[in-house]
């Protein structure tokens, strides 16, 4: 190309065009038909927002399910005597020596609970029901926090809770009994004989799972051990690893995950015991959480398809209307690549604004439901799925970024096809178009 004279030209030719000019052109084009652009932005923002909302809701649901599962005394890893899972009676309890206890504490765990978990019958003066008796050390911390918090009448067990029991409000109603009244527990002792003990109800708890509320009763560990003649024996040890479990860890479950490493160390340290993670003990919850993640992406894909229909339709209309203009621009010296960039930038601007709108709306929405979303209307259905009644939505920036990036990149890639086709040199040639 010839060099322009100093009067005409002060800078060398920018081979790819003038990016700032192209960007300004794209921005102005966005507002040449404001109503169309605004509708497109709104539709895209709604699509993004619905995807983010659904994703956040499903994450909250999965988190609630996970917490619910782990808090129901399951823990992340459990130790049992062999065959306890087949027959959880007193015969399959295990001894925990002080050296084993020390060894346990040396592992990378944040808490653990050793307790008795046995089948029993509870009897009031009116009714008798089968229950799951949990003999617990009242001073145990975190694993019992969830039940301590849900005691709504009376109190939870403490160090002086000999011959006391905490039962669910639902069970109390079934037994036609109440706080301060006595019940009788029956279970099989170490000698194989049925034993009874009278205990005073000192606390009533509520549980998001009505079945658990009607079945789980808590008594002092020592009292139960003495009653059944099984000193220093436990039927279950639950542990939580030092690194709190989150949904991503579950989805990216690898043999080298913190949980699996803990499980392997426990197997080495206690080869005579049965070591299992919560996934194998609660396969439904594990599968549900994984399924929810897949469902998330199915939903996002559906939204994407709907958005694409709208966006491609509008884009094609816009490209068709502007064919003459593209030819003019090409004729006066705008390269097809610069034209392509301009059209892509228009799309990027629309998506960027839609992204800001959707994220802003989502932040506002989450702030407006900061007290949680009450699933009371789902009643026992939610409990059946193992989630709490209240779901808390969180701003998960990384997840939002992943979802948004996936949608935006897909939209750009697919919209790039008609843009590319309409800016091919053959399409831009004037032929009979320019007059």
């Amino acid at each position, binding site marked *: 190309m010839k060099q322009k004279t100093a009067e005409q*030209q*002060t800078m060398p030719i920018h081979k790819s065009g003038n990016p700032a000019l192209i960007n300004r052109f794209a921005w102005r*084009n966005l507002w040449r038909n404001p109503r169309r652009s605004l509708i497109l932005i709104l539709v895209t923002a709604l699509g993004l927002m619905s995807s983010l909302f659904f994703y956040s809701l499903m994450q909250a649901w999965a988190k609630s399910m996970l917490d619910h599962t782990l808090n129901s005394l399951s823990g992340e890893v459990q130790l049992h005597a062999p065959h306890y899972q087949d027959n959880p009676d007193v015969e399959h309890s295990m001894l925990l020596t002080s050296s084993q206890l020390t060894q346990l504490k040396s592992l990378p765990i944040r808490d653990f609970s050793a307790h008795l978990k046995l089948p029993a019958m509870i009897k009031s003066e009116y009714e008798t029901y089968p229950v799951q008796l949990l003999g617990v050390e009242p001073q145990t911390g975190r694993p019992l926090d969830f039940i301590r918090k849900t005691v709504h009448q009376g109190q939870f067990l403490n160090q002086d809770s000999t011959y006391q029991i905490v039962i669910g409000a639902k069970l109390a109603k079934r037994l036609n009994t109440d706080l301060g009244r006595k019940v009788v527990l029956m279970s099989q002792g170490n000698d194989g004989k049925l034993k009874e003990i009278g205990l005073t109800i000192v606390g009533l708890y509520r549980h998001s799972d009505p079945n658990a509320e009607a079945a789980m009763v808590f008594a002092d560990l020592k009292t139960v051990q003495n009653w059944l003649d099984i000193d220093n024996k436990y039927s279950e040890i639950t542990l939580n690893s030092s690194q709190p479990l989150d949904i991503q860890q579950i989805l990216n479950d690898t043999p080298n995950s913190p949980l699996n490493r803990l499980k392997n160390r426990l197997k080495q340290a206690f080869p005579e015991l049965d070591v299992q993670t919560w996934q194998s003990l609660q396969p439904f919850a594990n599968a549900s959480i994984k399924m929810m993640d897949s469902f998330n992406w199915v939903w996002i894909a559906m939204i994407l398809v709907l958005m694409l229909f709208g966006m491609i339709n509008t884009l094609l209309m816009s490209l068709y209307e502007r064919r003459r203009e593209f030819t003019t621009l090409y004729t*006066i010296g705008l390269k097809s690549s610069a034209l392509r960039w301009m059209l892509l930038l228009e799309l990027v601007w629309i998506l960027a604004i839609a992204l800001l709108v959707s994220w802003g709306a989502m932040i506002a929405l989450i702030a407006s439901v900061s007290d949680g979303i009450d699933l009371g209307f789902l009643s026992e259905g939610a409990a059946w799925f193992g989630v709490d009644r209240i779901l808390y939505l969180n701003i998960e920036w990384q997840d939002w970024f992943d979802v948004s990036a996936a949608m935006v990149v897909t939209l750009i890639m697919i919209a790039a096809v008609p843009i590319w086709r309409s800016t091919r040199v053959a399409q831009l040639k*004037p032929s009979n178009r320019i007059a």
Partner: protein
Amino acid sequence: MSDLSESLMLLQDVTKTFEDGNRTIYAVDHLDLQIRSGEFIALYGPSGSGKTTLLNLIGGLDRPSSGELSIGEYQLNRMSEAELTDLRLMEIGFIFQSYNLIPVFSALENVAFILQMQGVEKEQALKQSREMLHQVGLQNMENRRPAELSGGQQQRVAVARAIVSKPKIVLADEPTANLDSQNSQELIDLMKHLNQTHKMTFVISSHDPQVIDSARRKIHLKDGKIVSDEIVSD
């Protein structure tokens, strides 16, 4: 700018054919033409005579089916599409029948667009464009968008855009077709004035007798061939 006698463009045995089913249409038929710097040429002839096709060939928008075509030292046949686009940007100005201004840019921005695409800094481009709009008599309308201008004013902006970068040649395809006779005459006078003051070469395809009468060289085309090539002495 070069002398009037200097050869600017040379077409040697140029043919452009289009296929229509089994039929071959010769839009430009073995045409030889030399255009010198500073000429003011009118291409005229009936519809389908090959005026627009010839303009497209000269402007590097179409490639000849055979023959040689050059502007200055550039052989258009041998240039890539990207190089041709650069050539149009740097060396050729275009004026269209329907003005074809960028609707989202003001008159000033439309004119500056070419300079900015060439890499001239924004402030410098705006300064030069302002001066050019002044020359075409639109000094008070630089911030108006095309939709806020009359047809004649839009065509003046288009002329300013075509010549602001001082191209070697300006190609105009039916520039007066959408204008009334007064605006047409004003536009012709403006182009002639620019041709004389800047020694800029104009090739205008037109049916308009006003344009043809004002040209110093009149090329009559028919069926893709030059029927007559008349140079009018001043």
